[in-house]
């Protein structure tokens, strides 16, 4: 479309023409020069300032990334992760439950990871060894002994640290029920009668390791005693398969899937954070989410 020539100047053009036709007074012209000179100086200063600030920010971030390594992460980054975890854990009431779903919403669980599931394993002779915090010799438990404790079922969402999730149905024994029945988590050898208020001499951490010691996780005692933390023997109504950690695995919907250790070999207690397979690869130690 051909533009029609404007017969009337637009208001903006008129303003410009009018301004151009009005010469500044000599005082105004001098002021203009002074103002433009000051503006140039200010502009230079500002760009220089932005450059320096950018450089400082870059150096600061580099400094953070080069703090001494703490299990696969720069120390200061891990401190922030721990701080975040502490903040949200304090916000979260320990007795609150992870969301549960209708049994019918359960879906098959994706297989992800087989570290700790070595071939050299005999299901028939398996026992779970528990090293009591009091220092006595490790005790061994058969699957039958574990199953003799009250059965707990739940349908919860397993969330992988990779970002996928699936709702599954678990059956097993609460770790808190186990530690109430077997007094292994305290120095004095008393049972944990009330999981919400463990005895003062209870260990602060629990360590769980596969029989081949290739995979290992740590839990805080409060999360180990949480009512949804299970020693699970059934998944979606079926006994655990080898790939899913038969005969007994750890389940805790408070934490990422990486903490759901398959094929429990040994449980032990500690007052310091126990070794954790994925935390050593640079992941958050607690795995709480």
């Amino acid at each position, binding site marked *: 479309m051909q*533009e029609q020539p404007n017969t009337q100047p637009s208001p*903006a053009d008129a*303003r*410009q023409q*009018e*301004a151009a036709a*009005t*010469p*500044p007074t000599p*005082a*105004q*012209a*001098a*002021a*203009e020069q*002074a*103002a*433009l000179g*000051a*503006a140039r100086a*200010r*502009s230079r200063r*500002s*760009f220089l300032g*932005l450059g320096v*600030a*950018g450089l400082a*920010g870059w150096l600061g*971030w580099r400094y*953070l990334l080069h703090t001494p390594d703490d299990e*696969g*992460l*720069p120390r200061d*980054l*891990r401190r*922030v*992760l721990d701080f*975040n975890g502490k903040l*949200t*854990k304090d*916000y*979260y009431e320990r007795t*609150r439950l*992870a*969301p549960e779903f209708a049994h019918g919403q359960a879906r098959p669980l994706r297989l992800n990871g087989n570290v700790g599931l070595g071939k050299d394993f005999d299901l028939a002779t398996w026992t779970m060894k528990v090293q009591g915090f009091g220092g006595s010799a490790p005790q061994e438990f058969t699957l039958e002994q574990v199953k003799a404790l009250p059965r707990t079922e739940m349908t919860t*969402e397993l969330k992988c*640290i*990779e*970002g*996928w*999730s699936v709702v599954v149905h678990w059956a097993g024994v609460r770790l808190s029920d186990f530690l109430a029945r077997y007094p292994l988590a305290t120095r004095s050898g008393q049972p944990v009668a009330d999981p919400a208020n463990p005895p003062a001499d209870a260990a602060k951490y629990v360590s769980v390791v596969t029989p081949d010691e290739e995979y290992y996780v740590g839990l805080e005692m409060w999360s180990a005693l949480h009512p949804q933390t299970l020693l699970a023997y059934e998944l979606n109504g079926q006994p655990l398969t080898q790939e899913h950690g038969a005969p007994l695995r750890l389940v805790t*919907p*408070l934490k990422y899937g990486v903490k759901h250790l398959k094929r429990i070999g040994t449980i032990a207690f500690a007052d310091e954070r126990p070794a954790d397979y*994925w935390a050593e*690869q*640079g*992941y*958050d130690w607690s795995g*709480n*989410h």
Partner: protein
Amino acid sequence: MKVVVEKHPLAIRWFHWINFPVLSLMIWSGLWIYWANDVYRLGWGNTTLFKFFPQSFYQAFHVDHKLAQGMAWHFVLMWAFFLNGLLYVLYTAVSGQWRYLLPDRHSLRQAVHVTLYDLGLRRTPPPVQKYNGAQKIAYTAVILMGLGSLLTGVAIYKPVQFGWLTQALGGYESARVIHFVLTLGYVVFFVIHIAQVVRAGWNNFRAIVAGFEIEEVNPATQAIVAGPTSLPAAGASLRPTPPTA
């Protein structure tokens, strides 16, 4: 004659330039996290128009196998993103700058005008203001997007501890999708923003660094002739600094 006109307060310039690298690193570390479960695509059924992201993209930018590092960066930088955004919102509220930024009943119509003009579909230029209708809508929307990213981010970072939030956002998977789409939104915002900054030219760009613009005024009346002439109701900061002599 030319005068120096104040445009962006120092605080807003700081918020802007802190946000830029922080949000960039948030997006980049977010990519490292997303890579570990890269399930999103554009398409339907078995037809995929675009996969987020093609293998070639991961390889070109070495995005792969950095989940732990990505999480560590993301959950440190989130504090900078959150605090900077919070201070920005508080500052605009207290200083009155929100009056330039919040869309009003004319903004939508004006935004259409601006868009048509910028696309060359309309000839009359929109009235020049500190922020036109399109800018008001964009700059307010991006703040709401930031809030959305924070909320969906918390919902997928701590989906059990903040279970109420995760459920309110439609569950874990849904919150993750929203978080991802908002991030795509920032990328779109960035592309348009840069294009507009290039179009607007040096005077405009210098203002976000140094704070001022240089405008042509009528020496007799001091009226701005070729710059922002129609200011918002509360507008005072674009008044020319009177020449001192």
